[in-house]
């Protein structure tokens, strides 16, 4: 089967009555890796939360579809089961629920009753992915993200990505707060996922992640819109020259939407 397509058209999103996204257009296909770059407060994280369906974000205009299905009609869990995944910037800590139990529930939520993944198969898969991500195997039995360091949480997001195998993943600042070794491991995980059946939208401030993952498309967000798109060379230019040249080109004075997003 060919890869899935996530289509975002003219997306407007409000939070607490304030409009943050002002007409985002974007299409991510299986086999593609997109990077969205841009300074703080330009709406990047809002975009990821709106796609996943965070209850605080209200879509006021536009559409999001996955393979033609209306994503906006779906609950958060339905979106996930339809094939979307969001690697979060600040993953929640959940006491008393082990990483392994949580992941097994997540995988089984995609399977019919009576067809749950066998415990042995699950453990084998989890062990091998954890080894691949150079994670301590004890982390399977630790409570979900509780007491994890910043780097451990990010690795754990990638572990979930690899276990759940979504069609389209959005990774929100998966690189922030990582040292170079952790960054390499996280990149290794994302690269491992690369295939015709997997599309990925990476949201980042920094070019350095893109040294390890070569994107097919790079987009720049400002003022709640995608203002510029290009290939990997765009990321290179942003790294050396910053964002000012884009602002000048487009006549933008303040790139933010007035909210830390």
């Amino acid at each position: 089967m060919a890869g899935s397509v996530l289509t975002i058209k003219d997306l407007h999103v409000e939070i607490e009555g304030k409009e943050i996204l002002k007409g985002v257009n974007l299409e991510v296909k299986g086999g593609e890796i997109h990077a969205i770059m841009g300074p703080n407060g330009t709406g990047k994280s809002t975009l990821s939360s709106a796609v996943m369906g965070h209850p605080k974000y209200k879509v006021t205009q536009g559409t999001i579809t996955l393979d033609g299905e209306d994503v906006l009609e779906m609950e958060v869990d339905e979106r996930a089961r339809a094939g979307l995944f969001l690697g979060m910037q600040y993953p929640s800590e959940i006491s008393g629920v082990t990483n392994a139990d949580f992941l097994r529930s997540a995988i089984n939520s995609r399977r019919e009753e009576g067809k749950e993944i066998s415990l042995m198969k699950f453990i084998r898969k989890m062990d091998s992915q954890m080894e691949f991500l150079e994670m301590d195997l004890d982390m399977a039995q630790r409570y979900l993200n509780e007491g994890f360091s910043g780097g451990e949480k990010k690795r754990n997001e990638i572990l979930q990505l690899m276990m759940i195998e979504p069609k389209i993943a959005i990774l929100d600042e998966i690189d922030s707060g990582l040292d170079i070794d952790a960054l390499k491991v996280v990149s290794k995980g994302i690269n491992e996922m690369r295939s015709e059946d997997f599309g990925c939208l990476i949201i980042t401030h920094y070019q350095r992640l893109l040294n390890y993952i070569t994107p097919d498309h790079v987009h720049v967000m400002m003022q709640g819109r995608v203002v510029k798109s290009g290939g990997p060379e765009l990321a290179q230019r942003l790294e050396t020259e910053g964002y000012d040249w884009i602002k000048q080109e487009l006549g933008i004075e303040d790139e933010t939407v007035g909210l830390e997003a």
Partner: protein
Amino acid sequence: MTTEMKLPFDQEYITSFSKEMGEPEWLTELRVQSLEKADTLPMPRPDKTKINKWNFTHFNKLIVKSDEFKSLEELPEAVKPLIDADHSNSVYIQRNNKPAYLKLSAELQEKGVIFTDMYTASRMHGDLLKKYFMQSAVKADENKLTALHAAFLNGGAFLYVPKNVTIEEPIQAIFLHDDAEANLFNHVIVAAEDNSSVVYVENYISTVDSADSKVNIVSEVIAGANARIQYGAVDTLAKGVTAYVNRKGLAGRDAQIEWALGQMNDGNTISENVTLLQGDGSYGDAKTVVVGRGDQVQNFTTKIIHHGKNSEGFILKHGVVKESATVIFNGIGKIEQGASKSNAEQESRVLMLSEKARGDANPILLIDEDDVTAGHAASVGRVDPGQLYYLMSRGIPQAEAERLVIHGFLAPVVNVLPIEGVKKQLVEVIERKVK
């Protein structure tokens, strides 16, 4: 408290009941004296819960007739899973007020361990029982309800572990409430002499859907020097049952008392769990989980009192409240003068699942000594929408996400219950109650 209280049974009745049971004189006397004192003693005063309209005292029958169980095969289906046939070599089962089944392994008998029902204990081990029975931990004249308890005593168990005896396998007591007219005045004593150790687990289980029963439970847990007692309990008394539960421990020098209490009653409940850290270097750990539902009102006071130097006390309570139930947590760490280098820590958390649910957590530290450490944490809140969003973003449906969060919230206590079957039961009870 000046409310007029008519007691259902008088001195004459109590005396003849005691005689009929073959009880030693001291116990008959204690019953009679306590009945007298009950008139004037005040009711317990649980902080933040008004109980003046609760009925702890009006009931018709002190004893109901119940049959014994000839073998474990005869147990009701609800009770069978609690008993691990391979490992439960020492079990006492009480059916309403009737000692219905008892087994104590030959090995433990040889070592001098005593485990029997309260009636037999008073007949066969009267002098030993007297040493402990409402002497040092819970006093009969503590309040009106402890006095009534002494007067109306109609069941319970006595567990005695001699010096230097270590018991590996858990000792189990099951108090089955299958008669809606039964009233339980159960007394449990767990006494561990110096350098001994024991794990005791009890279940209070109703198999009737609802009952107007009065339950008045007192447990006394006495750990000699360097002894260790782990005390686990799962209470699942039915709707309508009014319960007063007083579980109190007394720890000698370097002794340890650890409580793991799953308090899952469906009726109104007042619970006190007190640990007296009498000896230097003693240790007390009180873990409690609670689920409140329907319109029940429950009040849980957990108190650790430090007398000994270098004593350590830990209180951990987690409660989930749904529908229009009320759960009040009072946590008290008290360090007496002279208990230097002691440490009193407590944490109480209440998770409310509905708009009408009421929860409260009151941490109290009372410290009369300078050279100590103490800390408390308390929170009352609703399910964190951020947590649900995170779980759902992985495909887990909302109901399952809530279930995970609730089980996770209660896990710190559930996971330390010492008998697998009982732990499983507690998980199932929680499952049923939070659905």
